[in-house]
């Protein structure tokens, strides 16, 4: 018997009991569709996170105070490792480390912005002129924070694109006055000097405003530490494109250790690559987890196919005897039953893939409350894997029933009712 004859015969068996075959295939359809949907969701989340990270630029290094060492050193004393300070930034800049393109401090607070009848919740970043280059963007109109603004601790502000739209829906924001209310304790009036280009997507920068770091230090007392220096939350370094990030990171580390006068670093330097790797690990595990859950439903589908094939063998015992009498070998019988299971699983698999893809395509239209819309990324790999898996599901769930069928004694089979 050729494989084509076996497929032909399998089709005839399958369509002779359409309801039963349909329900059996349904198990596989649901299993395969859920594998596609959940794996694609995992991939979608992975891509979203990746995009958000790479949108920041891959040449960035983040220096943060190391939590581990924060209790060492003289409590409250200079270089105690408690925090990073603005003078660290200045000293790092004046060290002229090769491979470093720009260094900027970052302090951020959530605040309330009010302009006329409009108000909005925004993240306020205190930083320096270098920052605009570090986040690799430009202003849409006006200008970013200037060195003069920093030197004079000016009450000047640059708006993120979305903030500008919300506060000034039909006016040019440049030259207007924005009220900034911080922790309900501080209330300042800022002159808008620039508006940032939109970054698109859900980028945080679009929902932020930027003011000189010195203004922030000067007006908000508790940022100052006992030495009179100013704590910054993190220092961001943009390296040149063509340099080894590892090398730059090491150089910065050496310099900062000197500045802090410590042997062991009391800070951490995280590169974008490390962030990406860490996030990939998390999203990879998530995808695997989601895939495994879907795999369970596929397993249930496989058991269903195997079960129905066993029932078929029992029902068709006499037929198997007849086929043996007209010359079918054991192998022919095995081939027929395995092909039948395979056909059910592959048809179910293909339908499941199609349904899975349709669900994925419509998933991005569904939003869940305030959360960002889910996005599912159907990768060719997941489609191929789903197809191959349904092939093996058919093979495995058909194997034992087929073996049972082929090992039937032809005489016993013919005598059965």
């Amino acid at each position, binding site marked *: 018997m050729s494989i084509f004859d076996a497929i032909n015969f399998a089709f*005839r068996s399958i369509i002779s009991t359409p309801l039963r075959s349909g329900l059996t295939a349904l198990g596989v359809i649901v299993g395969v569709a859920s594998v596609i949907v959940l794996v694609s969701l995992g991939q979608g989340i992975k891509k979203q996170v990746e995009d958000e990270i790479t949108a920041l630029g891959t040449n960035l290094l983040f220096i943060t105070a190391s939590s581990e060492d924060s209790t060492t050193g003289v409590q409250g004393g200079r270089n105690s490792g408690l925090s990073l300070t603005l003078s660290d930034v200045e000293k790092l800049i004046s060290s002229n480390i090769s491979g470093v393109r720009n260094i900027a401090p970052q302090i951020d607070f959530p605040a309330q912005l009010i302009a006329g009848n409009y108000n909005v919740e925004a993240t306020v970043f205190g930083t320096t002129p270098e920052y605009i280059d570090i986040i690799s963007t430009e202003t849409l109109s006006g200008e970013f924070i200037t060195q003069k603004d920093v030197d004079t601790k000016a009450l000047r502000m640059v708006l993120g694109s979305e903030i500008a739209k919300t506060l000034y829906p039909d006016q040019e924001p440049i030259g207007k006055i924005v009220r900034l209310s911080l922790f309900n304790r501080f209330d300042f009036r800022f002159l808008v000097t620039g508006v940032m280009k939109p970054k698109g997507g859900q980028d945080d920068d679009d929902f932020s405003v930027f003011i000189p770091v010195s203004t922030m230090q000067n007006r908000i007392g508790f940022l100052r530490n006992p030495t009179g220096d100013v704590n910054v939350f993190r220092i961001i370094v943009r390296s040149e494109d063509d340099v080894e990030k590892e090398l730059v990171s090491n150089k910065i580390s050496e310099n900062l250790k000197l500045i802090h006068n410590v042997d062991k670093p009391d800070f951490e330097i995280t590169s974008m690559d490390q962030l990406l790797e860490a996030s990939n690990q998390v999203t990879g595990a998530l995808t695997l987890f989601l895939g495994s859950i879907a795999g369970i439903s596929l397993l249930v589908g496989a058991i269903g196919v195997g079960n129905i094939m066993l029932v078929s063998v029992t029902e068709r015992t006499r*037929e198997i*005897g*007849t086929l043996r*009498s*007209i*010359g*079918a070998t054991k192998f022919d019988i095995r081939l027929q039953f395995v092909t039948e299971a395979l056909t059910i699983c592959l048809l179910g698999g293909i339908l499941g893939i199609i349904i899975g893809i349709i669900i994925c395509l419509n998933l991005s239209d569904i939003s869940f409350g305030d959360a960002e819309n889910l996005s599912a990324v159907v990768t060719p790999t997941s489609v191929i894997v789903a197809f191959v898996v349904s092939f093996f599901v058919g093979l495995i769930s058909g194997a034992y029933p087929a073996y049972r069928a082929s090992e039937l004694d*032809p*005489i016993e089979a013919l005598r059965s009712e």
Partner: protein
Amino acid sequence: MIELQKVSKIFDTGFNQVHALSEVNLKLSQGEFVAIKGPSGSGKSTMMNIIGLLDRPTQGKYILANNDVSTMNDKIRSKIRGKVFGFVFQSYNLIPRLSAVRQVEMPLMYRKDKDRRKKSIVALSKIGLGERIFHSPVELSGGEQQRVSIARALVGEPKIILADEPTGALDTKTGEEIIGIFKNLSEEGITVIMITHDNSVAKNATRIIEMKDGMIV
């Protein structure tokens, strides 16, 4: 062409042993039309199944066309079975979901015969069913179903037809038509071995074998 030498068959049911055949000796030559008679349980079907390679003797030798087939492996026996024998059963044993023409093609499918559609139609026409080749078993009468099963037995051009009570489920007239077909086949040189309880059926044969208690009497 067929030679059974001291063939015995013992069925071990677990709690007792049934001696279905006891040292049966039998020689049949090409073109014979043999009727096997005997009471129920006398071993007729058992002997026929051994001849048709569906079963193996517990003891003794089975020589088919000068070959000892009792010790051959299952695969070779299956191939010989499909090539040399054509089975006709009392209850037709058709596959319910296949049309007559596909039904008859089945033996050729296992032999990977490319001409099977043509041969199937020829076999059905020969048996008087040329008009109903696309009917499924439920759409056919008992006599027509038995004709389909005879066409299926004939399509592979077998040397030997094995029919276990082929008229058992048919009325007298339809039965006679079926026997007529077997007679023609044996005249064409095909060996026909037929089990029957009916003396009027048996008298058509060229040779009658009586069985009792697993032995030929």
